[in-house]
């Protein structure tokens, strides 16, 4: 027997209308989150790549990935944590695969030094050593160090973002700084 299906055009239109409304609401919510978390993604990427253009590309890619998964990442804390992790991972991947490192290093010497009150930090030579030492850190230590160095991030927030206990964050931070200090001790003036 042939089966008959009753088609109700009105219902389809309603459904489409509801879908459009939901998509618009999703977009609005994402835009709010974008303004709040976009800089975070950029800074995480910049901390790994130390190159503005690359960091911007990585941040954009991370944000677009976040948008695709936004329905499942609507929770604010979860969204930040996910974005930080994906931006960091993408930046690490790019840094490892990119062959532009040498170009970046030559550009670094041409760029203007950042104003700093500290003599050591003001020298580009020291910064280069710091970058190298950072690159040699384990990823998990590096991410904690970056997030803790960002303004407005308490250790509690870092722990929440990474889904780690406070003690773990503190110990990672301690070992990362100690490692950097050991590596840079011979380069201080």
């Amino acid at each position, binding site marked *: 027997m042939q089966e008959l299906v009753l088609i109700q055009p009105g219902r389809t239109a309603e459904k489409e209308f509801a879908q459009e409304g939901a998509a618009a609401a999703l977009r609005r919510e994402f835009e709010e989150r974008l303004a709040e978390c976009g800089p975070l993604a950029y800074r995480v990427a*910049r901390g790994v790549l130390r190159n503005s253009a690359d960091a911007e590309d990585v941040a954009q890619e991370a944000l677009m990935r976040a948008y695709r998964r936004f329905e499942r990442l609507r929770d604010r804390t979860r969204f930040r944590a996910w974005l930080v992790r994906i931006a960091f991972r993408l930046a690490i991947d790019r840094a490892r695969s990119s062959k532009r490192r040498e170009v970046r290093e030559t550009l670094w010497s041409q760029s203007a030094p950042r104003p700093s009150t500290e003599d050591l930090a003001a020298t580009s030579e020291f910064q280069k050593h710091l970058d190298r030492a950072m690159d040699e850190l384990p990823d998990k230590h590096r991410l904690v160090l970056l997030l803790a160095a960002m303004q407005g991030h308490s250790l509690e927030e870092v722990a929440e973002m990474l889904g780690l206990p406070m003690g773990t964050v503190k110990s990672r931070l301690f070992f990362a700084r100690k490692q950097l200090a050991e590596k840079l001790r011979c380069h201080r003036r």
Partner: protein
Amino acid sequence: MPSKMKSCENYLAELTDAVVAAAEPSSELRSHLDACASCRAAFTEELQLVTAIDTGLRAEANSEVPASLLPRVRAELNDRSVPSRSWMPARAAIATAAVVVAAIVFVRGFVLDTVPTNPSVNTSTHNMPSAEIRPAPTVVSPFGMTTLPTKRRSFRPTKTEPSVKAEHAAVLIPAGQKQAIDALLAGLREGAVKTGVLLTTNPEQPLRDLQVLPLEVSPIEMKPLEDVSAESASPNEKTRR
């Protein structure tokens, strides 16, 4: 005093840890630093180093976000007006559908394998010349399974299907054999009678081809019609004549 017992080298690790952890030096270390100028100098150097590291890190971590970042993301968002859903739900749906289809095929195959092609029906039709096959709405199979006369689509090859579908056929039997067949079916249901017995040939009465006797038509007596016009005439007409 313990501080007098420790040499300066022993304090170096401790002062480095205190500086890296940004913790207050212990009272013992503090008293040693008060007394030892070289350790005090080392402590100051460590402090400068860690401060420089922190400054460099903060500079990196808080670099200015390019103004073009958010417009770039928004432009890309506009290109993709609706977030494309993750493939995971679609994959899950496809996988579920595949599992359901596989389960249906398996169950149907199992049912068709366990329900025989009803040899009793076929053999009985061979043995009984008076048998007649006609469609029936519902048939109770010898194994007690009621099959509805719905159209069934099978994924199995058609060669395994019986020539006459048992669920669509009923068998008319001579009235005298009904009790015997009922007893046979009951035996089959209870397992007392094996289905193989229906297929065994009787050496005394080997199976023969069905023979159809020629039709016998009795002769028909032909009589010419009588002229009934005079008999069927009304009495009035008769009187007029």
